[in-house]
């Protein structure tokens, strides 16, 4: 079925390289250097493609002047052959040019996506802290493609420039005035088109914005559809949607004028060139300086020049877009994490004796199951972030009495695992979700799932651990996601595990099972659980009570419940009377 195979190196590239992030232009130049070989190839075939189209007209003119007019059949066949050969050359060069354009587009696009992906995963939460997730997705979906788009045009652009010069030289060799008209006319016409693009840009931006809002409204309705169908209000929603849809339509209609003007302008300007060339050429015939066939060729050249002219305009548009796109890419790539690596990392200690937060006085001792009770969940999350070194700047957090900031981040993350309030699940099979670093033999996985009281989830799945976790784990309920995330946290077997509200979305029966199995799965290792559930609190070794930013009391749940009224009010929900 396939006649040709394409000799391209598989993408994505393995050598991504370090980009120049100092300006959008420098970034684009850096990308260009990385793919200079295929870029040069595109230029060569782009020239061949454009030149063969231009020279076709010389052959048509030759057929008229040397074959038809002097009534010479041999010469006619000869020129027809040349037309055919040029056509075939054009076809082959066109095919090569096209595939190299696609290769250039893909290489620039994919490399940028890889850079963005790598940067997001390597810089903690720096990107999401600075840029809304929707913007990042948009940059990858649209802006990066626009960067690729500029590289797509390069081969054709060079071909356009070269063919313009060649046509000018051919014309100059027969007529100075004709040559000059083409040599100067094309850039003049290209610059005349630019003003036509300006009004279009601003109206397009307005329309895109309105369309974006409409898309958000549509997605929002679908996301809340169950609720909408449950409590009603469909008419209101449809009316809102129609209103916004109408705004988009009106904005779209406003584009219609400028867009039509640009397109018809792109027809008129080359037509002027054709008229001037025909006029001058025909007068030369009257004066006896030119053959009729040559006039046909000149007419053809002028018609052909529409293509280079359009290509130049396309390049202006696409390179402007690429620069805007590069600016957005750089915004992502320049977002840096506040958590810094130490200049010289200390070796991770063989045994951990304690992890201590100087600010609040929270201390975790080796092998202990510790609970943390705070006034608000946000306070607990903040303490967890400090202990796990998710915040930058100077923090008085010490591991074995050494500042935690003196250890490398990789070591810290490996040994201290913090599971935040709403941990995320990712697309993939359940096995790799639970044990992302491999080594997930079923026995270990089942033990962890049992400890998280999550075996019922597994039972309900047709393919067990090989079942697919959908995007963000959305096929599971909130409670199921939480239990899977808990099992995943257990499976890290971290020396220190910090769990923030790990059972907030599960029912009491399940919570009580999780609590009773916690001790054995975290055997000999240190665990800190921020929770207010008595079912868990009664199972831990020690409860730390943080009030007004400091540890104010600690002890066993039962004792605290008896002696500390504030604790009782938070945990047992009794009124302070």
């Amino acid at each position, binding site marked *: 079925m396939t006649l*040709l195979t*394409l000799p391209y190196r598989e*993408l994505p590239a393995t050598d991504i390289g370090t980009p120049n992030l100092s300006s959008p232009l420098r970034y684009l130049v850096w990308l260009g250097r990385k793919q200079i070989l295929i870029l040069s190839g595109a230029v060569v075939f782009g020239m061949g493609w454009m030149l063969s189209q231009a020279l*076709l007209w010389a052959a048509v003119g030759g057929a*008229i002047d040397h074959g*038809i007019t002097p009534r010479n*059949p041999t010469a*006619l066949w000869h020129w027809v052959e040349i037309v055919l050969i040029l*056509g075939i050359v054009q076809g*082959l060069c066109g095919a090569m040019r096209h595939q190299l354009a696609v290769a250039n587009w*893909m290489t620039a696009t994919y490399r940028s996506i*890889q850079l963005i992906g790598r940067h*997001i*995963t390597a810089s903690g939460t720096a*990107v*999401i802290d600075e840029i809304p997730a929707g913007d990042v997705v948009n940059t990858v979906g649209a802006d990066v493609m626009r960067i690729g788009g500029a590289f797509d045009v390069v081969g054709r652009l060079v071909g356009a420039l070269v063919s313009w010069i060649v046509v000018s030289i051919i014309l100059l060799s027969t007529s100075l005035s004709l040559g000059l008209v083409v040599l100067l006319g094309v850039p003049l016409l290209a610059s005349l088109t630019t003003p036509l693009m300006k009004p279009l840009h601003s109206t397009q931006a307005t329309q895109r914005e309105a369309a974006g809002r*409409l898309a*958000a409204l*549509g997605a929002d*309705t679908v*996301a809340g*559809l169950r609720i*909408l*169908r449950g*409590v*009603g209000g469909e*008419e*209101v*929603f449809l009316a809102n949607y129609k209103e916004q849809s109408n705004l988009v339509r009106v904005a*779209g*209609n406003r584009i*219609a004028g400028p*867009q039509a003007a640009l*397109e*018809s302008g792109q027809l008129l300007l080359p037509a002027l060139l*054709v*008229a001037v060339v*025909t006029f001058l050429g*025909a007068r030369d015939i*009257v004066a006896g300086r030119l053959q009729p066939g040559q*006039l*046909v060729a000149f007419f053809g050249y002028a018609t052909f020049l529409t293509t280079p002219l359009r290509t130049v305009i396309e390049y202006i548009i696409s390179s402007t877009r690429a620069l805007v796109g590069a600016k957005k890419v750089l915004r992502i790539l320049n977002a840096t994490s506040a958590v810094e690596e130490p200049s010289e990392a200390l070796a991770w200690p063989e045994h951990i004796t304690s992890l201590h937060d100087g600010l609040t006085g929270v201390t975790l001792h080796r092998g202990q199951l510790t609970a943390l009770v705070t006034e608000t969940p946000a306070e607990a999350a903040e303490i967890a972030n400090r202990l796990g070194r998710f915040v930058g700047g100077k923090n008085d957090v010490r591991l074995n009495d050494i500042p935690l900031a003196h250890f490398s981040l*990789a070591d810290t*993350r*490996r040994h201290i*695992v913090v599971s935040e309030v709403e941990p995320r699940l*990712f*697309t993939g099979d359940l096995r*790799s979700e639970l044990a*992302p670093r491999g080594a997930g033999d079923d026995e270990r996985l089942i033990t962890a799932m049992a400890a998280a009281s999550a075996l*019922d989830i597994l039972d309900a799945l047709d393919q067990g651990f090989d079942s697919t976790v*959908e*995007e*963000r784990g959305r096929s599971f309920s*909130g409670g199921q996601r939480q239990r899977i995330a808990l099992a995943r946290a257990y499976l890290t077997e971290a020396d220190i595990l910090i769990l923030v509200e790990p059972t907030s*979305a599960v*029912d*009491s*029966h399940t919570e009580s099972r999780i609590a009773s199995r916690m001790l054995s799965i975290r055997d000999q290792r240190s665990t800190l659980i921020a929770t207010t559930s008595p079912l868990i609190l009664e199972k831990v070794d020690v409860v730390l009570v943080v009030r007004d930013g400091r540890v104010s009391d600690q002890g066993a749940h039962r004792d605290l419940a008896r002696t500390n009224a504030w604790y009782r009010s938070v945990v*047992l929900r009794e009124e302070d009377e």
Partner: protein
Amino acid sequence: MSSLPIASRKDVVLHARVLVRRHRHSLVTMLLLYALAAVAALFGPWILGNLINRATAGHLSNHEVTVTVLELLSASLLYTLLTFFARRKSYILGETVFAELREGFLASILTLPLVAVERAGTGDLLSRTTNDVEAISRTVRFAVPEWLVALVQAGLTLGAMILVSPLVAIAGLVSVPFLYFSTRWYLRYATPGYMRERISYATLSGTVAETVEGSRTIDALQLASRQNDRLDGNIRESFYAEMYTLLMRMNWFPIVETAFSLAVATTLGWGGWLALHHHVSIGAATAVTLYVVQLNDPLDRIIAWLDELQMGAASFARLIGVSVVRDNRPTESAEPLSETITVQDVRYAYREGHDVLHGVTLTIRPGERLAMVGPSGAGKSTLGRLIAGIDAPRSGSVEVGGVPLSSMPLHTLRQHVALVTQEHHIFIGSVSDNLALAKPSASEADIRDALAAVDALEWAEALPEGLATELGSTGYALSPAQAQQLALARLVLTNPHTLVLDEATALLDPRAARHLERSLSAVLTGRTVIAIAHRLHTAHDADRVAVVNEGVVSELGTHDELIALNGEYAALWRSWRNEHTDRS
């Protein structure tokens, strides 16, 4: 999960026909303008042909040159002007049709039956709302008009060729069989490839979204390399999808382009030979050759837009597929005799042969507060959905005052019973908009009262712009507890006599839940409440507690009765209250 249907070919054609009929006036005007423009464009080669004839005959004067070129210029000017109006018309028509399609689609989404929505999940609908609507936008706004225009141009150019010299024109048709067969082959193999490309980009963008939103988890669990591998895998899939379609084009393009130049060469050779033997004039041979060159452009566009049209048709089928699902609830039902809900020997299965409820019988008295407790997966939520009338039981009955709930029209059902789940959603719009959807006729005072009832008035008024503050994914972000409060305030407005709360307070901060429940219970006095409970204090506050275990009600009674029974509920309660238990 069962997915939503895709419209049949017949339905697609039917809908397309309706669209065309509705817009036939604009469509005809647009095509007429394009036809006139195309005719104007055909003057150029004809004028040049005449010029050449006069030049070879040797009687061409400067005056004639000037007149001819002025004719050429006027033709170009006319062409430009007509194209401008035609384009503008076609863009406006495209926008109008696209707006109609997306509005019609949303309207059909909003009338989907509850069961279909619950079963299909939001993923499929969301992809239709975003990807397919986007695809249709390209098809309707660009592909269809461009294609029709190219068709008109090609037809007229062909007509002009025949008009100038039918004898020469025959040669131009030499390319047709090449174009026809290669394009048929290309479309058959390439279109699925373009579909694959689109899916691969959707997956890629999904991975990026997941990565950026989950960057904290990725950092905490050192998932960077796995996530990078996944992204690389997505890129590789996109690359192969691109490579496949490229390969298809690499086979097709050379054939098309060669066919084009074969047509030009053949016309030139044949026309030249005819001119040599005085069958036609040199001018006619020249003009037809120029027309053949000109014909390449519309022909090229006709075949280039075909795959886009095919994909557009596929998206169109997915959009109108939603309207095929009809709500089969009756529009009328008998008036219930009382507010008593009776559940009689109910069985229910999601998959055939796998009952999740095994004969549940339960009578809920009006005004009663019933708590349902039990382990996850025991069937509490399923029972709740049946009591809320969302679905019908496989056997047995769920009735209110003798009328089966699942047979009630939706607007009647909502006045009797409402289901509140832990899923809450804040819509794009103001605080008031978010509440008013439950009762469009609600006054400002009604809305304030409802907010006050759930203890939300204070914080709502403290928002940057009070009740007019824009909320939702593009506006001010509420905490989950606040979002839940708004959901409850909606219910206050709907005012059903029975509420099914399915773990509605589960995601709340435990420190806030009790507070909210108290304020809610003050409002709901006199209403029947079935609370699928999560936290045991809910059960304590209830009139009766039902323990649901393995698809049956295993214990039923007041809190005190169940404590006295000393069964499963009692054990759990003791553990919750931190009393000594004999349970390990």
